[in-house]
């Protein structure tokens, strides 16, 4: 059974699904990710599905679950690279991606995962927020 590698870049976990996953592998990925989020304190999970030829109800549910689990663990999930034919099929199948954020490609997904002002030092942020901050 193939397992899907999980890469860590900064505070983001990156998963690229390149092969047609067996149901067991999909469940394994879900468990591995939950494990890695807590281990690393990651704030974002980026899942690239540009290699997937279909998303059926099982894979759809896995992606939604991953998003839900990350949310509980204070991380945001972005699914990127869904092919047009896959998107059309998912809509027809009646699958929705509640709570999952999406982006066209990895780059745009990473941008979504960078919250405004994340790089500002906490002290600086406090100063800006103070009502009578010195200029």
């Amino acid at each position: 059974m193939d397992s899907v590698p999980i890469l860590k870049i900064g505070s983001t976990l990156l998963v690229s699904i390149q092969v047609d996953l067996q149901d067991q592998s999909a469940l394994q990925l879900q468990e591995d990710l939950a494990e890695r989020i807590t281990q690393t304190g990651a704030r974002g999970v980026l899942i690239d599905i540009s290699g997937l030829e279909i998303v059926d109800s099982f894979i759809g549910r896995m992606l939604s679950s991953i998003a839900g689990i990350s949310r509980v663990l204070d991380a945001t999930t972005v699914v990127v690279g869904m092919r047009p034919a896959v998107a059309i099929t998912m809509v027809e199948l009646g699958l929705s991606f509640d709570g999952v954020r999406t982006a066209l490609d990895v780059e745009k997904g990473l941008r979504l995962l960078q919250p405004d002002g994340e790089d500002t030092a906490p002290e600086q942020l406090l100063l800006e927020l103070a009502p009578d901050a010195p200029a």
Partner: protein
Amino acid sequence: MTADPVTSERLAITTDGDVVRVRQAVRGLAQGAKLSLVDQTKLVTAASELARNTLIYGGGGEAVLSVEANGRRTGVRVEFRDDGPGIPDLDLAMTDGWTSGSGLGLGLSGARRLVEHFEIDTGPGRGTRVVIASWSR
């Protein structure tokens, strides 16, 4: 116009890996039959749902894949068969969101929306037989 089977292939569905094999075989035939990319994707997705149903609810079974010619159009037909418990209330099972297992309940009703032809023959104690087919445009 009659549909003549051109080739046919039989795959057992007894493991998780077989579901993947059915998907890939259906994809191969759909490409060969010149279905549009969206129709290919829909057919493969429907086959994936049904193969999983065969495995989980039917306790395993088989898929028979064939390519058929119908005038200028070629089509891919997939028949799923199992000797499982069958579906007691078909109307209920065809409703969106209804599930006897842990799925989303989109398997049967969803699969029907994805293909041109859908037929199902089932009943308590006599297994389930589902046929799906899609044709090139």
